[in-house]
């Protein structure tokens, strides 16, 4: 099991109000899984994804990532996990606005301490893979949504992580750009990555081998297609 969550709860506190976004969830994912997380808005999909990606810590429960208990990791160890093991793709892209495509993709390599020459090679390689060799020096403001999301995916792939997480990666895109993104994920999956995608789009979810359905912070269904 690459991901193993036992009785995971996440409670948000806003002032005096507590809100349980996840309620004692159990979830196990195998290496090489390709999972769609679906469910109505507010059901806790993003919350779950952020916990999986170590962008946030659970309020209660155990999360074993590749056999290691996440809550026992130091902040630097967590940083390393986020840097090397996980690639995160956000719905809002979250690119640095003043940096070029090249510089955005370079960031995780920089944090990993990769040497300048190797960084350059690697960035060129991935940007080519996502079909953006000619947009290397463009800033996010000079790109379309589909292009920005491909930069974000390239960035997530930079350190060749085992797990790729994408929170509604096609939510801000037209269907054609969305389809291209989905194709990219399929390719990555074929190369052996574990991929988890949140989506509202039934058509996209339907193409994936496994679907986890959330509702009100609980897993409603969880199973493989055929």
């Amino acid at each position, binding site marked *: 099991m690459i991901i193993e969550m036992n009785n995971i709860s996440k409670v948000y506190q806003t002032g005096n109000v507590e809100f349980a976004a996840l309620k004692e969830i159990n979830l196990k994912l195998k290496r090489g899984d390709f999972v769609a997380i679906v469910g109505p808005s507010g059901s806790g999909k993003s919350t779950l994804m*952020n916990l999986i*990606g170590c*962008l*946030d*810590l659970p309020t209660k429960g155990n999360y074993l990532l590749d056999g290691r208990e996440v809550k026992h990791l130091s*902040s*630097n160890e967590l*940083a*390393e*996990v*986020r*840097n*090397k093991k996980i690639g*995160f793709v956000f719905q809002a892209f*979250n*690119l*640095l606005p003043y940096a070029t495509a090249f510089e955005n993709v370079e*960031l*995780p390599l920089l*944090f*990993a301490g990769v040497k300048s020459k190797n960084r350059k090679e690697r960035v060129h390689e991935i940007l080519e893979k996502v079909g953006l060799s000619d947009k290397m020096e463009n800033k996010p403001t000079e790109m379309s949504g589909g292009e920005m999301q491909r930069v974000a995916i390239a*960035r997530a792939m930079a*350190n060749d992580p085992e797990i790729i997480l994408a929170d509604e990666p096609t939510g801000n895109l037209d269907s054609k750009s969305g389809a291209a993104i989905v194709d990219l994920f399929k390719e990555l999956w074929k190369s052996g990555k574990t991929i988890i995608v949140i989506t509202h789009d039934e058509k996209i979810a339907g193409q994936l081998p496994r679907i986890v359905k959330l509702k009100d912070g609980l897993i409603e269904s969880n199973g493989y297609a055929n």
Partner: protein
Amino acid sequence: MRTALTMFGVFWGTCSIVLLFAFGKGITEQQIKDQKGMGDNIAIIWPGVTSMEFQGLPTGRRIRPTEDDVVLIKKKSSALSAISPEYRDGSVTIKFKKESRRRSLFGVWPEFGDMRNIIPDEGSRFINERDMAEKRRVVFIGNRLKEDIFGEEEAVGERVLIDNMPFTVIGVMKVKKQNSSYSGRDYRNAYIPSSTFQSMYSRRYVNNVVVQTKPEISMEVTKSQIFEIMGAKYKFDPTDRETLSIWDTTKGIAFLKDFFRAFRYFLIGIGIATLITGGIGVSNIMNIVLEERTKEIGIKMALGAKKGMILFQFIFETLIITGVGGVFGFLFAYGIVKAFPLLQLGDFVGTPSVDVWGSVMVIFVLGIVGLVAGYFPAKRAANLQPVQALKLF
């Protein structure tokens, strides 16, 4: 954007403070220089009247120094660096060809010139010892007087008539700034050797005496010595300060220095206020960019940046920004200061000069403010979970 804003804040703060102090210093120095136009460390002594009984002698006796007294004081006083009697005729006719003026004529010693900051212009000289010894009919004239009767023509070597007696012009005063005097501005006057003056007018008493103390000695010491010497000769109480009327110009300088010290504190006050304003500006800018910065920190952490890396980068960035802003602010102010004399306003404000250490301190303070204002929010953001940093705004 935030880089530009912060940099501008530091630039502006540095620039205004450097300028403030440069001009403050220039004005101060110029005013002190003008005040010294009459002479450095000098006092003027006029006759007076005794106000205390002394060894049976009554009050109300007039004490009037003679040239012999001046010789005596010069011999006996150790505190003096120079002394000269000053005879004056307030209305003589000075004539060259068709031009003539009614002006003051002074009989003085050679050291009078240096002491009173009356410097001969190029190609001319002040009265010397031989003029004195030989009672030569030579005259040194103020620069305005020269213009009045000679116009653009060369004056040195020419003959003028002073009350119908021929005199040779030996020197013209170099233009100077003088903002105080006791018998008209020097540039209007004519000076001849006291010996020559006496051969024409045979005065018993001098009008006044000018003394200069050695720079390391207080004028008070000199004055006491003069009262002692004169008191012994004319039998009056040396503590009776009414016997001679003395204008101690060093008091004026001291006052001016005090005034400008106060002025300086005032400037420092403004400087600190400016610094605080600048600091508030810089920290406000830091707050404006906090949102952008927090989000950026969130993104970087999500991509695996370590806390230390983020903070290091932040500090480095701030230092560069303040450094560049400060250096440009300094250079800009420096440019203005250097270009300023071209405007020819030197008369009142003097020549501003830049205080390098003050500038370094300003840049340093603004840098620290920027760092503190930006560092803590950045640190707080870096201590959050990445998602919290991303969602903070």
